[in-house]
């Protein structure tokens, strides 16, 4: 499972980080600009919650 970040939609709400700090990384300004290449199976539930939490709908799951 991969997660694609539409960086131009992210506004720094950081809800993804709140749900899954092990999965998502924010830059120094608190914005998510980095795709996640491989979400470990044990973190996928949390990662999905992070994706669903984004109020800007900036995150999408790409199933392998």
């Amino acid at each position, binding site marked *: 499972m991969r997660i694609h970040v539409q960086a131009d939609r992210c506004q*720094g709400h950081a809800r993804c980080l*709140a749900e899954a700090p092990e999965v998502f990384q924010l830059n120094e*300004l*608190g914005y998510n600009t980095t795709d996640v290449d491989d979400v470990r199976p044990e973190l996928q539930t949390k990662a999905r919650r992070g994706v*669903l*939490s984004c*109020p800007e709908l900036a995150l999408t799951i790409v199933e392998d």
Partner: protein
Amino acid sequence: MAAPTDKITADRPEGAPVVDFDLSTHNSMESSNAAWDALRTTAPVAWSDDNGGAWIVSSYDAVTEAFRNTDAFKSGRAVRGRPGPGGDPGLMPMNAVPAKTTSLMIPEELDAPLWHPYRRVFANLLSPRGVEALRPRITYWVTKLLDDVIESGHCDIVETLTSGVPGAVILEWLGFPEEDWHRLSAAFHNMSSYIEGAPDAQHYLDELEWAFQRIREEVTVVRAEPRDDITSFLANTVVDGERTSYEFATGMVNMAMSGGVDTTTSVASAAFVHLHRYPEDRQRLIDDPELIDSAVEEFLRVYPPARTHGRTVVEDTEIGGFTLRKDDRLIISEVSACRDEAAFPDAEKFVIDRFPNRHVAFGIGPHRCPGSHVARAMFKEMLVQVLERIPDYRIVEDELDEYPNWTALGGWSRAPITFTPGTRRL
């Protein structure tokens, strides 16, 4: 209420649903929420001749679309069609309706590209990582201010905690002297709730002017001789190789203070009133503290501090099937979006573990509140400590005071509580 009106103004757009919707007439949360619900379910994008004539945008979809379209809808202080700093101060983004002039707020009242470097300063300072540096001070102030009253068995939880904590945390961070904290916090707290023409309105406006004067004084001092505090950092911001103007420097400190000291107060007070009225929710949080994070989001959705914001249209733009014309004003309702059944099933219910909860209490789009992370941290620590230390508090209902005005901000002016006395921690 959202009822047809016979009033005619030259400004009125053709074909738009026209409603009679004067935001300032709602003097309680209940009546304001009911008015928004009636409007949203009949005319989610409508024109009202009230408030100087403006579009009112109230559904979740239209609100998020409007907030995100910063090319067409500008935040700059404006007369109709002339947004930007230096315009007529009557129309400000945080005042959906024409209001008394207050000092400039930076970056809220800027539009891109000027907005970018100033937003970066706040985004960096207040990022989740930046807030970690403040966390020990947040814990300290919640502990200390509860310590001050915990042996007595009673206090006004607004003055002591929900106003006291953000005031102490933010004003300490800004480096303002402690003897000013109470008066500065009170100035912004009272400004949020005053009613035009009320007997105490002039006093509140005078106090607010005093607060802005104190900011100007401190900015002058720290631009001459910087200290190790955030006022000095903001006031000496360098953009494109040059130190920012005195006007913009004060605007940044105005923003940090007014955004910081009373907004968290509103939702935290609402949460403590809620937990008094709904003991089953209180018990669930006591039994399962892991629910606190989702409860924080649901409190924000149900009791958003900022209820509306204003924008100016700079190019004809369609929303919800209607064309908003260049130079029109629009009022965007966070509170109504948060109550939209289309986005939140059982929207009228407080659902402690609601998920997902993509509320817009902090706004949405580029102007999203950059202080949201510090606000959440302060709010959560207050909830945690109250539920641990004075879990049986009761509000003295007949001394509970709502804000008399629910136009732009909502909240509680006063909420006296009693509780079983506890022990100090410090």
